[in-house]
């Protein structure tokens, strides 16, 4: 069987995979990083989004062998070692941008990539369009959009602290 070497959340792993094994299967079943989810079989839902070399990828749509030698970040790798949440994670919590939590890892990973690729910031309409590849069935996206809008200001260094949500 082919052997691949992946650096996942800073840790190097060498694993044997079948040629047909998807990246998400390696992450979930071989590395037991079950934060990355599978919500569909047509590359539509985005629950499986991770970062590969800093770019978001749908890990259900890439073979593990295609990722040989790459740097992967999953939802488990976002928070600091001391438990401090990434600003996007913190914003999702503050703005109640998750309910069942199943789409959340992919949504957060997509959102971070989206913000990184728009250094000048995005309008709420642009955020909505940018989330084209991620489905959420619980929230109606309203609070996800608010969370990303607030997080981008922190990530781009425009504000030091996350703006609090209106709900008190």
């Amino acid at each position: 069987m082919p052997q691949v070497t992946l650096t996942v959340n800073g840790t190097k792993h060498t694993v044997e995979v079948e040629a047909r094994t998807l990246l998400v299967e390696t992450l979930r079943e071989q590395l037991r990083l079950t934060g990355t989810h599978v919500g569909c079989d047509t590359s539509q839902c985005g629950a499986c989004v991770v970062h590969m070399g800093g770019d978001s990828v749908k890990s259900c749509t890439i073979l593990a062998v295609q990722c040989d030698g790459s740097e992967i970040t999953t939802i488990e790798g976002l928070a600091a070692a001391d438990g401090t949440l990434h600003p996007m994670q913190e914003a999702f919590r503050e703005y109640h941008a998750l309910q069942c939590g199943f789409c959340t890892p992919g949504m957060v990973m997509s959102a971070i990539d989206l913000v990184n690729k728009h250094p000048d910031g995005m309008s709420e309409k642009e955020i909505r369009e940018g989330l084209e590849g991620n489905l959420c069935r619980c929230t109606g996206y309203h609070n996800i959009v608010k969370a990303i809008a607030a997080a981008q200001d922190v990530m781009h260094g425009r504000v030091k602290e996350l703006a609090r949500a209106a709900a008190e």
Partner: protein
Amino acid sequence: MNVVTPFEGIGASLRRKEDFRFLQGRGQYTDDINRPGQTHAVMLRSPHAHATIDRIDTAAARAMPGVKAIFTGPDMAAESIGGIPCGWQIHNKDGSPMAEPMHPALALGKVRHVGDPVAVVIAETRSQARDAAEAIVVDYTPLPAVSGTEAALAPGAPQLHEGAPGNLCYDWHIGDKAAQEAAFARAARVVKFETTNNRLVPNAMEPRVAIGDFDSFSGDYTLYTTSQNPHVIRLLMGAFVLHIPESKLRVVAPDVGGGFGSKIYHYAEEAIVTWAAGKVKRPVKWTCERSESFVSDAHGRDHVSTAELALDEQGKILGLKVHTLANMGAYLSTFAPCVPTYLYATLLSGVYSTPVIYAEVKAVFTNTVPVDAYRGAGRPEATYLLERLMDVAAAEAGIDKVEFRRRNFIRPDQFPYQTPVALQYDSGNYHATLDACLETAGWAGFEARRAEAKARGKLRGIGISTYVEACGIAPSAVVGSLGARAGLYEVGVIRVHPTGSVTVLTGAHSHGQGHETTFAQLVAEKLGVPTANVDIVHGDTAKVPFGMGTYGSRSLAVGGSAMDKAMDKIIAKGKRIAAHLMEASVEDIEFERGTFRVAGTDKTKSLTDISLAAYVPHNYPIEEIEPGLEETAFYDPKNFTYPGGCHICEVEIDPDTGHVEVVNFTAVDDVGRVINPMIVEGQVQGGVAQGIGQALLEAAIYDPSGQLISGSFMDYTMPRAGDLPDVGVATHTTLCTHNPLGVKGCGEVGAIGSPPAVMNAVVDALRDYGVRHVEMPATPQKIWGIVNAHRLAAE
């Protein structure tokens, strides 16, 4: 130790406790669970809507690498495995019971819908199981199929079940037919309206998963499953399908990724993996693929209805007559029969003081996936029918649609209000929610926005929906008399530990609702324990004594009330202990938020003092009071709860593309007392998103041969962020009068109130085109067709 913290009780928008694990990928969903020695199951499903199974040849598949076992329907039948049971029995007009055909877990001789499971392959890996499933040869003889709701009753239609002649499941009615006919005879006007409520696929983001585990040593079975109600699954599967006593069967529903109804039901795959685990003596895991979900998760809605409304000269409603056909699919899912009857026809009074109502409902079998409750369940269908009818009736009577509604509203002084279709609404104020919503939505200024849009070449419309629903299900005796085969109480256990932290066991199940936060707030409010020291345990029959699960917006109204009752018992026992410790009489002990006080003195004991004394009973009235501080309560509600309110939607239609954009959406809902406003707002927004999805985007479409055309996320239009607007949510509270918390429920109101608001807006936008009605979903294709037909006619 319990320390004073910022206010976290009732009314605080506390950020959710559960979010830390979900946001860091540390949730534990069923597919995240792997049992030692686990095997993998793959279901072989029917590609035909209707066919006889002439032969199943598994020889080649059995010889494939890694295959442990293959089972088919006859294998299960040989061990007397029962059919998948239905939990609700409806009676026909003549008093006879509904047709209730056998629903084998694996098909026996015949398949009745695309996706009907025919065989299960169990192998060392999922890939091996999948490969082997492809190697099974099944000889089918295709039979004519019927997928349409109306077509099922047509003479000569293909017949699904021997025990259901004419494909009729039941022919049921409610209300006073003679009184309805008399009312119609003296009417100044009768308005007739026909509509189809589109079939939907719930599509929780987490596909279903089931893991069966068998302990050869103890003989105990465990099922890990994506369920909204693990105790109900244990009861149905243990008692009716596998014949395993509850004491030998544990059902665990860990973190569950959304349900919306679709994870209430006992599904065949749960029974198959549990039974198979006992056969292969290894754990058996099945993970549904999305394409499988589309053809095996229960669908929702699918009604065809005709409504007639009788009005007097002043536009007062004299009576309502409704005829509905409801599609049950190929087999009866767990609660399917009650959806078009007791969750639908009983809601046909809506928010109106309609004096007489008569409704007939026929349920039919078709060669489609079973249909059951989906967010709102019956109430969205009733609300859609009524609220479109109200707009049509107002227009035909020449009365403003808001004024028409107001004229017919149940007034605040009429509560408790007895409807002519069984329900008694305890509280509400429909005028108040209407006025608040009109104000917030800027109804009065709409015509200026319409004119401004017109100048941009857009067709702008506004729509309103005023609704009530019945949830917080349900009084056991009442639903029992209506055909439920279960009680619908809930269980709460409050365990105060020696040092004062609290564990709550609840039979309600959270799959996105935020129970770990909201329920902890109830404890903070009543017992004064900080939410950080309150743990909510749910979803495991080995931990929680019993429970009926979460659906019908019942978690807080029923489950929360059970907790409240258990806390009352904790306080009562605590007072007796406190009286002993402070040498006072029990009658003189007061309790408020964690402190027991001798009335009128400064003598106090904290809850922690009391719990410590209860578990270390050195100075303790041991002859009179048992040690320990743990109480259980079963709460059976006295009535349904009746959330209601008003939704207003504004749309803009691009006449060149037919695209409908929701540009404003305002909801003002009365959900009773609000525990966590942030969570309530999120629940309403999510429900509204599903309602907009139904109105504009979603439809499960079968072709006449029974193939599901919209069977993947490539074909079935799920609402995406760009399809939806910001949803403004406000609440206006009247308290529920019959539960201790005054709560009504908020999980379904969004999906119930919104579809007619959207469609009334669409029809309003098209008013210059002479459009009386547009069926859901209002796709660009449909709208463009209307606009273009009008243009052609004008040329």
